[in-house]
């Protein structure tokens, strides 16, 4: 049963995995081969860009697309617990988000390790990108689970990102949040991995894990409730 759900999600989202891989890995391949800018610029751009682009692309199609197509009710009417359906969706979404970033990491290591950057200096930004993309996917799905269309879900994702950004700006310019914006928002992950400021890393990880867990519980609950409102 779970296999069947995975197969369905895979058929629906595999083109996004292919798209992410072609776009991001293509960018990395061209950039590292041509060396038009420093390798570090390419690596950071791919890690950060991928970690923002992929969750937006994947997140808006996970639940909202089912709802706009009208297939969500049919899915929830299956003899499977709704939280399992949701978990399968999130697992596949995570795979599709993370796949291109990991692919870029492998490609960067193969093409440029030891050239201008050591292997560890290449791996760390990508690991940060993977972590950021998972967090962003979680937030986006949690807040867009009731959206009736993919476009709206995408707007919710952008809004979440802008709110984080605004918090960082407020914190940096007016110190309103007492520096905690880096911990509450996942931007702290990039602060650690890109600027190599590892002091706050344990705090960032633990806070993000707690927030992510709570958001997933909340989202799974609301996901299951979507079908019952019609009865």
């Amino acid at each position, binding site marked *: 049963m779970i296999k069947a759900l995975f197969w369905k999600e895979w058929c629906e989202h595999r083109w996004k995995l292919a798209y992410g891989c072609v776009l991001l890995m293509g960018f990395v391949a061209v950039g590292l081969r041509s060396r038009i800018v420093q390798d570090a610029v390419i690596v950071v751009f791919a890690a950060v860009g991928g970690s923002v682009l992929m969750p937006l692309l994947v997140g808006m199609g996970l639940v909202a697309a089912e709802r706009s197509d009208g297939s969500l009710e049919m899915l929830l009417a299956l003899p499977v617990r709704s939280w399992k359906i949701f978990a399968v969706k999130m697992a596949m979404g995570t795979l599709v988000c993370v796949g291109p970033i990991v692919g870029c990491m492998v490609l960067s290591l193969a093409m440029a390790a030891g050239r*201008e950057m050591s292997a560890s200096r290449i791996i760390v930004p990508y690991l940060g990108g993977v972590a950021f993309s998972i967090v962003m996917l979680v937030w986006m799905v949690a807040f867009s689970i009731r959206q009736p269309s993919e476009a709206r879900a995408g707007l919710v994702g952008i809004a979440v990102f802008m709110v984080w950004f605004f918090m960082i700006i407020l914190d940096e310019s007016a110190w309103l949040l007492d520096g905690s914006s880096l911990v509450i928002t996942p931007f702290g992950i990039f602060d650690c991995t890109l600027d190599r400021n590892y002091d706050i890393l344990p705090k960032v990880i633990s806070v993000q894990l707690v927030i992510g867990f709570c958001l997933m519980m909340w989202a799974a609950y609301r996901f299951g409730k979507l079908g019952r409102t019609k009865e």
Partner: protein
Amino acid sequence: MKSGKALLWKEWREIRWFLVAGAAIFIGWPLLEAVGNYRLGRGFYSTDMPEAIALLLGGPFAILVAVGVTCRDLKGKIACFWQSRPVSIRRWAVTKYLVGLAVVLIVLCVPLVMKIFVMRAEHELGQLSGILTCHTFTVILIYSISFLAGCLIRMPVYAVIFSGALALLVYFLPILAPPLESFSVFNIMIQSPVVVVQLSESVQGEPWIAEKMRVVKIPWADDLVLRYNIDLLRYIAFALAGSFAAVVLSAVAVKRNWRLKVGQKLMFWLLGGVAMFLLLTVVFQLRSNLTCIRQIPIKTASEKGFDVAAIASDGDKGVLLLHCRKTAYAEGKAMYYSLMTFDLSLKEPFGEEFVIPEDLEKAVWQNVGRSKLVWSAKHPQLLYMVRELHSQDKTDDKSKLNCAEILTISLSDSEAVVTDKIDLLPHIENRKGYCNGMCIYKDRVFVNLSGQVFIFDLGADGKLTFKSVTKRQVGVYDKVTRRDASRHTFATMLVGLIPAEGLTTEEQLKVAVELTDYPEIASEGDIIIGMDYDSPLTVYRLKEVRDDVATLEMAGYHRPTPLERFTGMFPTPVFVRDGLAYTLGGFGGGLTVYDVRQPQYIKRIGHYVAPDEMFLAIAPLPDGNILVGGSKLHIVRPPKVKR
């Protein structure tokens, strides 16, 4: 024209909210900011907000309006409703197009015209008028393309994505693809394509700009003329032709029910495809980077974290002048300096590090830069530099030389010690000058100080012997820069030669170039390369020599594209070898190589940057490679060229 009025009425009722929103953003926002500035006493338009909003949001606003006006009437069964009535599709399309365009032009142009009117007394409105003319037509083109996209796709979100991808190509492809450079809105805007100037300034500037300028008299102002760039006219024609074609195609598409069936996948692949295409054109233009054969970290005994500030070399040996800012700041000092010998033929290339005593520090930092440290492989323990001290002259408030010496420094016993000095002050006629350069050539040391050239013989024991001093001719200048644009022609360059025994004209030319202060020119044989941030890389060829003044004619030039400037920031030529000009960019710009063997077709053929590196020093090596100094020494292989 009852039906025409009906169409107009309907369009107005539908589009008025776009006008309100656009007016609030494009007109209201800058107006609010301007009023605020005025109240704070900063001047009504002390910032560039109207231009910034027009440039950043003009295109997106045009896309939204165009897609909005078309898809509203074409999505679903609405199209069947009005098309089954006797409504002429041509009239429908023209009405929609013109009403939408009027809204876009009003919100885009009104704030710019307002600013031009308020600031009309100021002369520097070239950029603003460039945006008003050039960018407006770009927005018209983008609006027209989006209108066509709306008619073909008929779904608002997908039409916006499709139009966005096309707009990216309109804006950036001409920058990135050199053959399309003249269709780049940015390239034309930065040339101040339309400006009102005084009659006396009607045509000026570098010849490569002047040849494209045309002048039109303004009837009501005798002393003012309108100067425009013919590239602008070509661009406007291109934009209007494209817009017209898009509108015609739109009407045909609606009439014949042509549709572009698109889905989410296609849109995303399209956006991704455009992004990759633009990236590939960047790569095509910038070409590949040079290969670094070897990187040698700078290891000093003091471990302060030094970078290379200057290289004085002879072959693959020499002396490095090192500096360290970070540790110095931490310890309350401006800069630390150090000298270190090197020999690249050895496995461990670095020799001793020499501490610079306090009395030498000022001389050292004055000599940071090209052509101010002299070292010879024949006397590896000796270094030559000029020490000059100035004080303020109370009569005219200008700096006055009160010490000018050429020093011989011994590099032994881990400290740099002055072993000899020659006082130059008695020979100096004008004490208001500076040392502009120093070089060694054929066992002679040349110093350019305060408008005079001092020549010293370098003895077998490394001792300098004063030989002669010549006065450089008044009115002769030895560089051409943008700053000289208003006073000098650029078709030629004049260089005062150094009349020294045994030197050919080309060698005299080389020495004269080496003795310039600003590292903006370099020479090889009978050519000189000149380059500055804004002016192109120009090749001058020796035409004649008269009275020790060489006249060189411009043989060709290469204006860096915006993209080339981006990756080779603030480049200055450092040396020319075998027809390849090597330029070093500040602020992390790296090393850029140009092929100048055919001055009419100068090509950028190589580039080298490294992470966290700011290259300040460079020297050619006898094996053909290049030595570049930053936080490490980089030995870079030059680009391969067909001979």
